[in-house]
């Protein structure tokens, strides 16, 4: 043993042997016992320090687990935001499709109005034609009236002629009797013509009256139609304004979509940053785990030291 070796090497020690070496073997063990106890105490202290450092390491590990968890939550929230922005973009796109639908319908209405306007113009043309026809009708009626007056004049002359003829026939006696009959027939015919012309004149007057009424009615219709056309024009213009306004949705949609895309881009950057944080935390956690594992293997070393140290004193005694 080493204290024996010390004693045997006494020969080369120049100074007298220290008092401790002159003591009994039992007394010699005291410093060894002291050293063993000291080592044991230091080993315990080391183990206590290890407990503290492992606990601290565990706290660090727990904290980083929290960081990773929070980071994951944040990432999920950012992901949700991203979804929201994507939805905003989609909604903005829907604006456009709604706008397109409106524009399409308004355009359809415009077309119908246009055809209505065309129809109204057609009707107006017809009214104009009818006015001309009425004018011509009146002229014709005037001519007829004039012709009828001439007919009445002719009939009157015929009547006078027939009367004169009757008188001449009466003067001729029996020889004029036959002629008198004819003259009478002519006179009757003239009267009959006059009577018929009179009736035609009444009909013509009625027709004129009806014609005037129709003309008045047509003029009122024309007025109404003009008013209606004006309203159609106004509606047509309004449709134009609607379409113009609806086109403004495009700009709004583009602005929203641009904002959503920009926000999405920013979120992607944040997501990438979070992923980097996650990766770094993961790496850090790996290191902490390795450090922690190393700490656990120290436990076996402590146990081995403890087991070996615990045997020294019993063996020495």
């Amino acid at each position, binding site marked *: 043993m080493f204290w024996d070796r010390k004693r045997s090497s006494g020969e080369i020690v120049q100074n007298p042997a220290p008092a401790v070496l002159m003591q009994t073997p039992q007394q010699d063990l005291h410093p060894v016992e002291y050293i063993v106890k000291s080592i044991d105490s230091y080993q*315990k202290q080391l*183990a*206590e320090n*290890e*407990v503290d450092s*492992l*606990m601290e390491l*565990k706290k660090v*590990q727990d904290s980083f687990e929290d960081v990773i968890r929070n980071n994951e939550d944040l990432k999920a929230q950012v992901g949700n935001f991203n979804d929201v922005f994507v939805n905003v973009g989609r909604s903005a796109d829907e604006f456009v499709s709604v706008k397109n639908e409106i524009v399409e319908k308004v355009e359809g209405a415009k077309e119908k109005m246009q055809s209505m306007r065309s129809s109204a113009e057609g009707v107006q043309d017809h009214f104009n034609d009818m006015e001309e026809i009425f004018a011509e009708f009146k002229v014709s009626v005037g001519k007829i009236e004039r012709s009828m007056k001439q007919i009445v004049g002719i009939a009157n002359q015929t009547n006078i002629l027939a009367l004169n003829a009757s008188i001449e026939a009466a003067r001729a006696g029996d020889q004029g009797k036959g002629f008198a009959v004819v003259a009478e027939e002519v006179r009757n015919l003239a009267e009959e013509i006059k009577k018929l012309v009179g009736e035609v004149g009444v009909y013509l007057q009625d027709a004129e009256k009806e014609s005037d009424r129709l003309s008045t009615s047509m003029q009122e219709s024309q007025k109404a139609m003009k008013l209606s056309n004006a309203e159609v024009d106004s509606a047509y213009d309004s449709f134009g304004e609607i379409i113009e306004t609806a086109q403004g949705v495009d700009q709004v949609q583009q602005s929203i979509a641009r904002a959503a895309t920009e926000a999405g881009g920013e979120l992607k950057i944040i997501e990438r940053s979070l992923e980097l944080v996650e990766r770094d935390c993961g790496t850090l956690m790996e290191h902490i785990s390795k450090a*922690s*594992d*190393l*700490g*656990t*293997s*120290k*436990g*076996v070393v*402590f*146990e*081995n030291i*403890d*087991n*070996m140290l*615990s*045997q020294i004193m*019993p*063996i020495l005694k």
Partner: protein
Amino acid sequence: MKQFYGASNTGVLSEAVKGLQAPKVIILMSNPKQFEQHVAELERLFPGVPSIGVVDMCYDRRVTEEGVGVTAYTEGVEASTDVIEKVSVMPAKYIGRVEKAIEKVNPGRNDTVCIDFCTGNDACVLTTISGLLTQKRVKLMGGTGDAGKVSCNGKVYQDACAFAMIRNMNGKVEVYKENIYRPMEANYRLVASKTDRSKYYIGELNGRPARDVYMNLLHIKEEDIATQTFRNPFGKINGTDMCIVSIKEVVGNGLACFRQVNDSDVLTILEIRDFMQIADETIANIRRDFNKISGVFAVNCLFRYLYFSQNHAMDDYLKKMNTLDNYCGFVGYGEHYNSQFVNQSMTCVVFE
């Protein structure tokens, strides 16, 4: 080499050794009442043959609970046995015996195993001898026996560790550890403190009373702790490896275990897996390493035996393990695997 196994349910040793011829080394597995008698009788029957003995149940395809069992190796074997005494205080004093036993078998590469039976202070014994065994390329498996007694070469010892160095002259040997547990999903990391290694006691985990921590994490009552260890023992983390620590009982605010726990040890709580599936994996691992197997000697923890038996699965487990040729062994109170002292495990040595 050849592995022999014989057993007698009635404790008749002559019945257990029937057919055993020219053994090179004998392993006796006896019961508490007949241990001394069996040790002496074995020495009479096979005088001078190296032997070690332990008090424990033994098994091959089925368990012999109260009788006696014998495992022996014949042909192509070099063996040497001896004993380490005073293991509770100074196993290192007898390290010379271990050195001599190793020298005697002259280990080659991966062909020698040390099978040991210990009465206690197992971790200290393994710490003491593992450095030497590693240096000499000797594997180790063994376990803790019952009744505080072991035997070596016809003599009974208390407070001792009997060991046999066995060299397979015709092939390799390898040791295995079967763990039927895994860390719980929460993967708790519990730093032990206020421990008393002499009493296998844990005072605190993460700075809180160990009893409360275990109860709270598993949501159990105090009276359930001793049985809950079947399903949820502690795992002592050693880097990437793990050794199982069984809970014995509640002591004050702390927990007494079946294995030493030290200040700064990091523990986790384990949960049981499908042990039949694990057995399949163990068999597959062994089959991958060995084309031909002469024999397998194993120690199964008493807690595993109890748990398997409660689940009426012990016979099925042994039947499965016996698909490996010649699987036999004993039921121990703690298992040894190279330098590790573990609980609730199966460790075994496989001879080519």
